[in-house]
Every structure is written in structure tokens, then in C-alpha cells.
């Protein structure tokens, strides 16, 4: 299989298994982002989302090195921006995605023994919304607009964060059962 050796020799060596798994994670995140659009949660409050793609980020953080997880997050945001987003929504996801990635990574590093995927994903949801509110404030250049949405987004973020974290825990159980990947 020439492609495998090519991939291995290209830049830093990624094992084919890891490469495929990372691509799979990106693909799942893409599909989840699309499904999320079909669920109209944002009828009354704009910007409220389930954050389903965060399930993937959460699992990736436990599975891959931080650098690889960041790659998965960035590729997902970029592809979602091309496929189903607009220039504005790309800005929002980029700010939210990178902020929540950094926060989740720090939470996991500092509180590794005391925190489960639920806490990590609540931090992720909180920072994701914070990033979006900051971009909203910058785009409208109005603090009051940003402040109006902040509390609602934060409180719904807690609920969706718990849901997302619990789903990640469920997925972990199956991944361990099938020995698909060894969690770090």
C-alpha cells in the first residue's frame, strides 16, 4: 500500500491507524454539526446550540495528544464553515472553538483526577458561548447587546454541557469495550 508509507513519511510520522481515527473524528464532528442545524433549539433565544460537535472534541482530548486534538477542532471548524456556514458563523465558531479547546485542555490538565468528561464539557460549553458573546460584542460594537445574551447562553450552556459530557462518557464505555482506542 503505497499511500500508507507516503503518509508515514510525510512530515511527522502519523501511524495509519491514528490518521484514519483522526479523519473519522473530523467526519463524525462534521455530521454532528449538520444534525445540530436540523434541531431548531434557537426559536426564542438566538445562538443557543446543543454543541454536539463538542462530544468529539471531548473524546479526542482523552484519546489524542493536545496538538492532534487542536488539529481536529480546526479542520472541523474550517470544513463546517465551507459546507454549511457563512463568513460570520465561521468567526463565531473559530472564536468559540479555540477558546473552549484551550479551556478544556487546561481543565483536564489541572484537575485530571477530580474531573470527568461532564465537567470538561461544561467548561467547553461555557467558553464556547463566551467566545461567541465576545465576537457578538465586537461585531455590533455594543456592550449592552452582548450583555443581554450572555446569561441566557451561559445557563443553557450548562445544560447542554452536561448532556454532551454524559454522551461522551457513554461513548467512552463502548470504545473501551471494543478496545477501539486506548484512552490516555
Amino acid at each position, binding site marked *: 500500500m503505497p499511500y500508507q508509507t507516503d503518509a508515514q513519511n510525510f512530515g511527522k510520522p502519523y501511524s495509519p491507524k491514528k490518521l484514519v481515527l483522526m479523519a473519522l473524528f473530523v467526519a463524525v464532528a462534521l455530521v454532528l454539526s449538520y444534525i445540530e442545524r436540523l434541531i431548531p433549539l*434557537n*426559536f*426564542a433565544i*438566538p*445562538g443557543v446550540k446543543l454543541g454536539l460537535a463538542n462530544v468529539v472534541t471531548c473524546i479526542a482530548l482523552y484519546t489524542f495528544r493536545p496538538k492532534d486534538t487542536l488539529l481536529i477542532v480546526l479542520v472541523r471548524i474550517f470544513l463546517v464553515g465551507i459546507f454549511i456556514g*457563512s463568513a*460570520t*458563523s465561521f468567526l463565531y465558531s473559530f472564536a468559540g472553538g479555540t477558546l473552549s479547546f484551550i479551556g478544556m485542555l487546561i*481543565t483536564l490538565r489541572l*484537575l485530571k483526577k*477530580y*474531573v*470527568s468528561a*461532564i*465537567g470538561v464539557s*461544561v*467548561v467547553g460549553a*461555557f467558553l464556547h458561548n463566551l467566545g461567541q458573546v465576545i465576537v*457578538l460584542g465586537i*461585531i*455590533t*460594537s*455594543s456592550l*449592552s*447587546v452582548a*450583555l*443581554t445574551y*450572555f*446569561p*441566557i447562553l*451561559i*445557563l443553557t*450552556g*450548562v445544560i447542554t*454541557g*452536561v448532556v454532551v*459530557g454524559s454522551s461522551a462518557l457513554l461513548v467512552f464505555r463502548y470504545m473501551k469495550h471494543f478496545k477501539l482506542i486506548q484512552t490516555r
Partner: protein
Amino acid sequence: MRKADIGIIILVVIIGIAGWSYTLTQTFQSGGTAHIYVDGDLYTSVNLDENQTVEVITEAGSNTLEVKDGYIDMISATCRDQLCVHMKHINKQGESIVCLPFRVHVEIEADQEVEVDAISN
């Protein structure tokens, strides 16, 4: 669910409630002038006492706003997500309607003319 999870959840909820109570302490008076901004710049201002329809036409598309009985509402927009159309109509100072795709937002601010009248009276 571990110890730190509960701690994190409580912390975030406290931040949320703190933000919420901050917005509640802002005393909202109804009436005034609705300022319509495009990209952060003032596009036009409308008096909420006069019933009227306002069209905001930008390069990206158009938004139609309706002023009725002291309320201003986004009644239609050519954007894809239609979030702003679903938002509630507003009538209090400090409230806002935002259309993200077109970067249009409406904010109600205190009516300056009222103050002038109050002084002259």
C-alpha cells in the same frame, strides 16, 4: 460525575446568575427612540410613538422592521436563518434585536427630545 464536575457546574451557574441579575438591575423604561445600526454604525433612528415600517437595505440583503403601538419588531429579513424574525418585539430601553448575518442591530435608547421638552415645560 466527580467532585470537580459539580464544582464547575455550580461556578458556571453562579456566573450566569450574576450576569442575569446584572441585566435585571438595569431599570428598563419603555418608549424612547430605536436606533438601527449596520455594522456598528448608526443607520437610522425611529420614534417608537409613530406606527411605521422601516426597510434596512444593505449589500447583504434587506430587513423590514415594523413599529406598532410602541413596539418595534423585525417582521421579515432575507437572511437564511431568520433568527431575528423569530425574536420578540421590544419596547424597553436597553433591549435589542440582532440580525447576525447582515450585522444589523436595533437598540432602544432614551429619547433625548423628551428631556428637552421636560426642561422647557
